[in-house]
């Protein structure tokens, strides 16, 4: 059984909800990634999404886009990320999802990207610029390798198309809490009715992201969804720490612990 499936299954058995932080791969550095992942796991993360830096991340807001731009200036490559993840894997139980653009997967070649991802210890993929219509080859290759492939459900995704997307997902469904690009929000998103719609057609766990920035938001979305994804709020803190000459890894761990507080509040 894939690690992602195991993690959700044991959480379901125990009645726990999950925290899924997103980090920009290579920030503050590739060397910092293994200790950061170990620290995130210890502070309450169950699955980590690692964003593969891309020159033109159209689905990302200014915070993540700027972090990716900086990582590329520092020379972070997919191969470098695979190596850093491989180093960390044996010290970790948490699930690792690669969040990566089709431009990168396509240039490396689908087969090679998936083989290298699997060898590095990555458990699943999200390719946010490959919608369901373009994802047949991706889904087949991921299934063959035993990796999960998660597609996104937007607020505008409805009807027959929603069913097709949910059916094409493995591991979990990614429910976007709001329209637009990645970024923080002031008020907690309302997702309960969307979660119920998806539950009516699938048994897959539902992770909710976009605009989730505080423990209160996490408490709110995980009252219905199975997991909360936090990206920009965490990346912003890491970037601020780097800019202030502080320990960015320690800051990521501290904030993750704070976010995890939102999970217990919902139980």
């Amino acid at each position: 059984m894939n690690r992602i499936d195991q993690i959700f299954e044991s959480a379901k058995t125990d009645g726990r909800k999950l925290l899924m932080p997103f980090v920009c791969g290579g920030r503050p550095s590739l060397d910092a990634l293994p200790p950061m992942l170990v620290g995130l796991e210890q502070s309450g993360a169950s699955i980590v999404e690692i964003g593969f830096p891309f020159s033109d991340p159209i689905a990302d807001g200014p915070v993540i886009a700027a972090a990716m731009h900086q990582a590329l200036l520092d020379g972070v490559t997919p191969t470098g990320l695979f190596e850093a993840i491989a180093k960390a894997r044996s010290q970790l139980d948490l699930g690792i999802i690669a969040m990566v653009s089709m431009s990168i997967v396509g240039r490396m070649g689908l087969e090679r990207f998936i083989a290298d991802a699997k060898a590095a210890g990555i458990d699943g993929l999200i390719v946010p610029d490959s919608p369901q219509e373009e994802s047949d080859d991706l889904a087949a290759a991921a299934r063959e390798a035993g990796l999960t492939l998660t597609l996104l459900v937007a607020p505008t995704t409805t009807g027959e198309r929603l069913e097709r997307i949910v059916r094409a997902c493995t591991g979990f469904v990614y429910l976007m809490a709001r329209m637009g690009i990645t970024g923080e929000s002031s008020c907690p998103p309302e997702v309960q009715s969307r979660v119920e719609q998806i539950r009516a057609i699938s048994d897959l766990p539902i992770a909710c992201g976009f605009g989730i920035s505080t423990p209160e938001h996490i408490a709110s979305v995980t009252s219905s969804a199975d997991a909360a994804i936090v990206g920009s709020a965490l990346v912003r803190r890491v970037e601020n720490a780097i800019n202030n000459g502080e320990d960015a890894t320690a800051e990521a761990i501290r904030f993750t612990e704070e976010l995890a507080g939102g999970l217990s509040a919902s139980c």
Partner: protein
Amino acid sequence: MTTSLTNVPDTQGRFGEFGGAYVPETLVAALAQLDSAYQTAMADPEFDREFNRLLTEYVGRPTPLHIANRLTKHAANKSASGKAATIWLKREDLAHTGAHKINNTLGQALLTQRMGKQRVIAETGAGQHGVATATACAHLGLSCEVYMGSEDVRRQRLNVVRMELLGAKVNRVDSGSRTLKDATNEAMRDWMGSVETTHYILGSVVGPSPFPRIVRDFQSCIGREAREQFLAATGKLPDTIVACVGGGSNAAGMFYPFIDDVSVKLVGVEAGGSGPALGQHAAPLCEGSPGVLHGSRSYVLQDSDGQTADVHSCSAGLDYPGVGPEHSYWKDTGRAQYTSVTDAEALDAFSITARCEGIIPALESAHALAHAIALAGEMNENEHLVVNLSGRGDKDVDEAARLLAE
């Protein structure tokens, strides 16, 4: 050729292996809505009437097609044989706002109204598409915001003033390389949060389906007119057609009506910049390879990790790392040939056309002219070559003066 190459894209927006819609889920519903609005409009004679009325009364179409006598003589003088094919110019520089871009922006602004949307966004590099979008929006009473890289804002200040005069808001983009590709990223990001009220008027035959097809169709008035005009003047079809290719909208509009005329040779000219190394040029069809950029699969300039490469051209309108998927399809099927000319060659053609013909061409169009002059000299004297003069060069005089002084 046994099957028609004009019967593309398919229902998935594919031109052979190229095209498609590699976009975040947030945009899928908007693209479906656009596709449906476009299909409905195409089936409605009233849309066609209204679009054509605007093209005639407001844009000033048809634009002229005429022989460039002194340019032809220049080509003959430069040729080893002392002879050259007759060069004809299709004068898109005479369209309202000074380039072909207005054909597409008016068509899409009409679609915006049909979709019941009031707000338009656009990306722009040199500012020509931004000005054409601001113009169409002013004429039809739509609100307009244009994304432009801060580096381009600096280089093309006059077009920023024009857009603002036309009532558009110009949003400066400071991310990435601060040029066209980054302006495109920002426009797409805006659209992801605003699709319900906003239409994104993409400026070229690039991006996710259905944009490449819609822009090609709206620009096809260029080729349809040129074909009729040339037939009326000579009773036959031209031997060769030459157009510059950045994203490729003027070339697609010119080539498409000739695709089934297999005797007509189609040549696209990319920006060869200052040299063949990655980063020195903007010639994805000549130097790149297939990949995904800005929502479609096409020839692109990327590094070995799939990161978009830096590009360079003296012409801001050609300074883009991707190209329309239909051009990739025409390249791989052999229906069109693609070549490139350098900054220096384009600049030379810019000056020659001004002196020989009394026309200051856009630096983009000067790429097509440079290749046309050389190609005419290799053709027979009784053959005919049509160049799409896609825009006027007033916007480029500062830059050209600076480069010519170097």
